[in-house]
């Protein structure tokens, strides 16, 4: 009543209402209050959701957590860097001897949930706004696709996770939310991807390069099925991609990653993290940071400092390439010549090589889904179903200049596929996920001489999160 009185008086002063008077919005900063109104708003929000790929907890610019957790933690690569206090956290990953405060777990958790939060924001707001139905469909599909991908990574890295499906507006909003069973997380992922494959466009124009197509959604859904050992669903979904003949293998392996084969000509890559040099904050350092530690060489073709030996191929990986495999030279250089002319036998990945650049300013994209992966997954699903599976595998081998597989039995083909995926997808952060999916992580790592524990098929939840939420139980064993 009193308040009304003063508002009345304010009105008499020519002011608007009380509430209006006390509501001011920043005019020099964007706020959430006036966002999510137009198609353009949603487009920038979707772009922002894709950009989570570059969070240090995902791919980053070259040293993201998925590199560490997907490759360095396996028999594929190690860290060619001095062991110091500063690098101790990194070696915990290589040694499979984790401390709960390790930043790679923390970053992976924060990064994926950041992406999920962004997707949730879009999905919450879309129903309330009307604009062009095609675009609206596409944005919803993209948000669902990305949310599914981020949850798929989380559930594989950490097991049961908090299932958050709407934007959280209260800082304490998730502070008591416990972990949802893996089945519930997969149900959301499948649901999202099934919706997305209907909503995403069949073809991506050059102007939209980097965005997800329905084929990317199908490939991811196939991988989700395969991971859950739903082989019939997996083979059916992957077969759709093979039959559609939209994507195919590049004739030369190296061309799948080469800058020279532009988007329009590269039918193999189905989704890649987009990079661009030129010091606009979007350059990649996959190649330059992975060159040998502290080494300078004209071979590298990179200016502006030395690499730090991240993702250094192990002798084990180098030996895995069969004689004549064209992929070895396209993936790994075995030595370099130093600036003083000395040949140093230190291997480093060249899969994403781009010369003539400043360190960290590469244009080469990082593949997340590509057709070779689809063929190998398809073969894996068929083999598990007891059906003939050699044909898709041989497509990949042929492109690598190798003869057809000689594996004839189901177990032999399993091993042949494991070997093929290893060399085909090396340095693409697939190895850890593949070994865990096929229940081979423990055996392979022990054979590699790493004292791995059975519970290490899941990473520990970051201590930051278990500290902030008492209902967040730690994974067993940690």
């Amino acid at each position, binding site marked *: 009543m009193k308040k009304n009185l003063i508002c009345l008086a304010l009105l008499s002063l020519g002011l608007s209402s*009380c509430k209006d008077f006390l509501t001011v919005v920043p005019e020099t900063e964007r706020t959430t209050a006036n966002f999510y109104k137009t198609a353009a708003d949603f487009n920038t929000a979707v772009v922002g959701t894709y950009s989570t790929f570059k969070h240090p907890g995902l791919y980053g610019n070259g040293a993201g957590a998925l590199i560490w957790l997907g490759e360095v933690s396996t028999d594929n690569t190690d860290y060619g860097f001095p062991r110091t206090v500063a690098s101790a956290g990194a070696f915990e990953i290589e040694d499979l001897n984790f401390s709960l405060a390790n930043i790679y777990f923390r970053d992976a958790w924060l990064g994926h949930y950041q992406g999920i939060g962004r997707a949730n924001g879009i999905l919450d707001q879309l129903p309330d706004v009307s604009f062009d139905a095609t675009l609206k469909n596409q944005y919803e599909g993209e948000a669902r696709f990305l949310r599914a991908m981020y949850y798929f990574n989380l559930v594989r890295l950490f097991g049961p996770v908090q299932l958050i499906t709407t934007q959280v507006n209260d800082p304490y909003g998730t502070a008591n939310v416990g972990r949802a069973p893996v089945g519930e997380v997969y149900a959301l992922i499948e649901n999202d991807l099934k919706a997305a494959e209907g909503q995403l466009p069949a073809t991506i124009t050059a102007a939209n390069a980097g965005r997800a197509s329905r084929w990317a959604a199908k490939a991811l859904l196939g991988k989700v099925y395969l991971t859950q050992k739903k082989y019939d669903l997996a083979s059916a979904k992957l077969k759709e991609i093979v039959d559609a003949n939209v994507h195919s293998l590049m004739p030369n392996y190296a061309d799948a990653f080469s800058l020279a084969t532009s988007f329009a000509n590269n039918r193999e890559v189905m989704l890649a993290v987009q990079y661009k040099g030129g010091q606009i904050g*979007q350059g990649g350092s996959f190649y330059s940071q992975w060159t040998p530690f502290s080494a300078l060489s004209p071979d590298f073709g990179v200016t502006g400092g030395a690499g730090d030996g991240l993702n250094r191929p192990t002798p084990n990986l180098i030996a895995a390439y069969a004689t004549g495999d064209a992929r070895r030279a396209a993936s790994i250089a075995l030595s370099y010549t130093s600036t003083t002319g000395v040949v140093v036998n230190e291997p480093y990945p060249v899969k994403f090589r781009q010369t003539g650049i400043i360190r960290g300013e590469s244009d080469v994209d990082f593949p997340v889904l590509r057709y070779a992966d689809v063929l190998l997954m398809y073969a894996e699903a068929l083999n598990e179903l007891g059906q003939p599976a050699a044909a898709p595998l041989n497509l990949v081998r042929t492109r690598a200049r190798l003869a057809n597989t000689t594996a004839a039995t189901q177990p032999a083909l399993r091993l042949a596929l494991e070997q093929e995926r290893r060399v085909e997808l090396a340095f693409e952060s697939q190895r850890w996920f593949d070994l865990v999916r096929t229940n081979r992580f423990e055996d392979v790592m022990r054979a590699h001489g790493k004292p791995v524990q059975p519970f290490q098929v899941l990473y520990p939840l970051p201590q930051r999160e278990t500290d902030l939420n008492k209902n967040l139980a730690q994974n067993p064993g940690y």
Partner: protein
Amino acid sequence: MNSSLTGFWKVGLLILSLFFPFAPAWAQTKQTVAGTVVDASNQPLPGVTVLVKNTTNGTSTGPDGTFTLTVATDNPILVLSYIGFKSQEVPVSGRSQLNLSMVGDEQALKEVVVVGYGTQEKKDLTGAITTVSGQDVARVPVSGFDQALQGQVAGLQISSSSGSPGGNTSILIRGVGSVTGGNEPLFVIDGFPVSGAGGGNPLNTINPNDIESIDVLKDASATAIYGSRGSNGVIIVTTKRGKAGKSQIGLDVYAGYQEISKKLEMMNAQEFALFTIDARNNGYLDNTPSTPTFTPRITDPNSVRPTNFRIPTSLLDPASLGEGTDWQDAIFRKARIQSYQVSASGGGDNVRFGVSAGYFDQQGIVLNTGLQRYSVRANVDADVAKRLRVGVSLLPSYTRQQDLPYTGHYGSFGVIQAALAQPPNVPVYNPDGSYGTSVPAPDAQSVSVQSAVKIANEYKNPSTQFRLLGNTYAEYALLPELKFRTTLGADLNFFRSQIWIPSTLNTAAATGPALAVARRAESISWLNENTLNYQRTFGQHAVNVVGGFTAQQEMSDAIAITANNFPDDLVPNINGGIVVGGANQGGNDPAGRFQDYTILSLLARANYVFMDRYLLTATIRRDGSSRFGDNNKWGTFPSASLGWRVSEEAFLKQQNVINDLKLRASYGLTGNNAIGNYRAIGQLGNSNYIVGDALTPGLVRSSFSNPNLGWETMKQLDLGLDLAVLNSRVIFTADVYDKRNSNMLFNIQVPGATGLTNAVVNLGEVQNRGLEMALTTRNFVGDFKWTTNANITFNRNKVLALSTDAERIFASANGQTANSNVTMVGQPIGVFFGRRQLGIFQTDAEATEYGAQPLARAGDVKWKDSDGNRVINDNDREVIGNPHPKYFFGFNNTFAYKAFSLDIMTNGMVGFDVYNGTFMLNNSGVQNNTKYVYDNRWISASQPGDGRFGRSIRGGRNNNAQYSSQYIFDGSYLRIRTVTLAYTLPAEFSRSIGLQGARVFATGANLLTFTNYPGYDPEASTAGDNLLAPRSDFGSYPIARSYTAGVSVSF
């Protein structure tokens, strides 16, 4: 009208009287009355004002207590008034000789105290409020009244952290209340709450001579009426207004000069060379391993030494170097200070006016720094109708300032640090007239230190500020006891500044790219207040009720534009180069944008007095603010207080010792809304990506909307005692208080599943407990008068809760040392935190035995291994000092004999620590350091120094210069703030030369400071208002000593 006015002034006043119709009384029949005024002990009272009632006709008694006055014959009534005595009215009744006596009054009790939205008689006051008269403010020759308040009010802690003209003053009422919000009290100038929005220091824009009184509101009872802005206390400034009857023209002038109050004794050139050679030798021996064929010796020539340990050629022969340059002499100067003010005030029954114009000019003691202020005051009150009074206050001012980056590291053009660090063998000017400098570094053994004189001459940072504070009011008496008052005012503030760094000025190379920055900031704040005041006495009951509502809006807009790529230095501003950035490019300046802030309030206060002895005050305010989240838009801030005037009780009425005794108690809630604008609103940030091989904007949520975000909540309990004894010649006030500030704004970590990692929420709690006492005694009251004002404050600050018990909020006041201070639970805010120095290793064996410092040798600093793991690292840090004083005080004495008066103000602060970064910087013989370090450093076991400073060494492997308790010093000081000697011209003489009165005076300020602190001044701090890392002395602008003389004349 005084008949001795000169013709000129008569004309002037006649003109004025056309506008201001006051009634001249010179046309009636006259008679002469003479008289003597004495006090109760029959001593004559000089200086008593004798005025014919309802006229301007009056005089004052002479030294012998006598007066003569020409009055009209129609039985006039004389009004006698004198401070400390009861005013009385005496009918002349045809007598020509009057023998009058005056009785002592409970003087202070009659005083009227300005409280929020009204005034109150001091005897009825139940809150903790201290009043300082304008006279006490004006007697300190400084640019801003805030500096002048130092030492005058219990509970008010003022530190002049910079001695630059218009420099920063840190003002705290009853301790540091907030960790993350603002800590400055609310300033209310002529009823208008002002803020520092938009740039410039608002307090510098007020001429201290224009101030009638300053009221410092301390407890919740007093401040809760200011609601969400009251928790840090309130300072109400009232400017001078005209009074009916006494028309007066005044001229106040003073001028003088300032100089540095203390110079640091630096090493001279010869000592610097010896120190440097020592440092190079020690570094060489420590870092060069012996081999079977080679043992390093200090006699080894430069040719065999690594670059770092070579002795600069210029220092090879110390004996030849002599004194060298004291760079302080080159940058500090005798600087003028002057102030002029002309004022006029007066009026008749219907219109009263007070106007003034002032000019203030203060050069800084550092070359090329200074401040000039042009100020005007125009206050008019008019009774335009029987029940309607209107009035206006206008305070326009224009301030110019010449600044330099005087504080901080010389690498950022810190002038003072550059002067201290410059090797003394470098001359100020080379023989060819060019600047002597170490830029670029002369050799690999030295570092680049730019000439402080060159920086002062070539770096330009002028600024100007135009400010207009204007407030109008209308007051209408609906009933004799019910008044409605409405005000409308605005505070306009226009600030502009420039920075110009020419290509000839660089801290590393002979030349560098020129840079220019231009800043503009303006802020407009308007305020409307509407109050009803009801005041009535019913028998034994007296009631005074105020209620009302107010609305205020503050808009500020600031831009900063940077330019570089200057082809030449011919156009020394942004127009000469290529503009490279706008908006927030002016450094980390949050003002670089448009901001808007609104506040709506409802307020009420009731005072109730029963039998003139039982007092009750209750206040409440409801504030709604745009800064608060939607769920917390409105906050309510109540307070209640009780007072008991024990001396009015019958059992104390019978005696004559106690004139007044009052007990007070108050409790209330106030808020701190200094949480920044827009913090409750969720913001979007850029997260761009590459789509279609092109950079594509992405927008994502970057912060939570927090609809619950609100003010910080202060709960304060105050218990007070007011006592006046011995004919009110001794007046004592004491208060104890307990203030707890909770719901502070914190940036906390939140679960990642929210999609964000941080959120700003309200939590945490800080406590300030304290005791403050003030004593006024009139020790002698006869011909020789001596009055003492003393006050002392004890405050204890403690953090009770942060977001977690383990949280440590690190802060640092200067770029040299990261994390020098910490705020953590159980400790005061911003304590010094670092390694604790245990001493100096006297022998290599002692160092080896200690074990925790494997690289230490004899002469190196020994640190405490707090966790006992025999490794010294960050985990061994502990609290090593407290920046908050145990107590601070003011002790002010006024002596008067006849026309002479001597006023001595002293103040002090005891039991606080200061971090001195100056000593830290220069231990390796690269930059100069103080003689103090030279004399007290460890040289050998037989010359161990003072145990604080290790050996001089370059490239020491123990890193002795590590931030530690080594650099924490006790800052306790006692300062003679001002000494003023004044002489009032005899009235007869004044009149004979056409003056109403005249006073001449001489003032010395900051004449002496007693302290063990080895730096310039324990108050000087680079930290400014950064209370999370206070009291960091790193090339702070030292406080000046000044000598001024002036004259104050009224016509």
